[in-house]
């Protein structure tokens, strides 16, 4: 099984994701340049964090029109797991694969700190080995992390178990209902603002957390089951 990590001009968390998948979890992971228009052979895709196109016009909007996104949409339709982290979440929202919008943090500041999120849905490939309400210590680093959607969409997300992560006893950006991550209807596309690739080795965490490696492990476990 092969995982593709899409690299846009300005992505900067691709190598960290690659390191976790290859070196920590010994999975087969490749970099995929955003101009690729063929993703045949990939079983899952990660859209990593960073500043694709320098966040020009709006974070993620120009990247959403990259040639590779047509293929990402095709894989999403086929039910393949797609994970968007931070800028990746913004790109998924701008490309219509996830609902709502990511807006400037309430504080107007770039918020960079360790926080906690809880697992709200374990019905996605990335959380299916986790327990509901399980806490994950994980960092956020963004200026446009405030999740917003209209009340009707929020109600649909909440009632249908499409909210995947929520901030726990913390409000880093003013997201509606403390939403830190959501999935699409099918549950295979997940976007999250915090960075799991930065919380997968305790030696690299000031709070000693490798809690988020479980998210990648859950993905590998899911892909194994699909074989």
């Amino acid at each position, binding site marked *: 099984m092969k995982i593709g990590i899409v690299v846009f001009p300005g992505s900067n968390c691709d190598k960290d994701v690659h390191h976790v998948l290859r070196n920590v979890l010994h999975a087969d992971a490749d970099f995929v340049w955003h101009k690729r228009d063929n993703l045949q052979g990939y079983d899952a895709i990660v859209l990593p964090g960073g500043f694709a196109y320098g966040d020009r*016009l709006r974070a993620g*909007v120009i990247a959403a*029109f990259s040639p590779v996104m047509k293929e990402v949409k095709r894989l999403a339709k086929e039910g393949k797991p797609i994970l968007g982290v931070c800028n990746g979440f913004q790109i998924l929202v701008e490309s219509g694969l996830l609902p*709502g919008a990511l*807006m*400037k943090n*309430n504080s*107007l500041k770039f918020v960079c700190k360790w926080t906690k999120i809880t697992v709200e849905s374990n019905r996605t490939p990335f959380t299916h080995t986790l327990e509901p309400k399980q806490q994950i210590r994980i960092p956020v680093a963004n200026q446009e992390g405030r999740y*917003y959607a209209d009340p009707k969409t929020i109600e649909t997300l909440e009632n249908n178990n499409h909210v995947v992560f929520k901030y726990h006893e913390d409000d880093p950006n*003013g997201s509606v209902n403390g939403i830190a991550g959501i999935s699409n209807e099918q549950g295979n596309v997940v976007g999250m603002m915090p960075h799991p690739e930065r919380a997968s080795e305790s030696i690299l965490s000031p709070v000693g957390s490798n809690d988020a490696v479980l998210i990648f492990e859950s993905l590998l476990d899911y892909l194994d089951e699909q074989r």
Partner: protein
Amino acid sequence: MGKYLVSVIIENKAYINDPEGETILKDLIAKGGYSTVKAVRTAKMLNITIEARDRKDAEDTVKKLCNELRIYNPVVSNCKVESVNVAEARN
């Protein structure tokens, strides 16, 4: 064919929080003594120079590209388009 300058104004919908506007109001304008200023909303403007048959053609094309290319995020923003004939404007 004429050259037209089309301004695209992207404004957040009225019920969306605008902390930037609020900060400018509270921490700059109000503190600067302008108590008669009651609200500030921020917006983004793009000035697009486009060749078109006429004004309507210019505006229609710009409106189309704003929708197709997600120049504004329809979930949270509105988009207003205003044009002026560049040749006219120069005179």
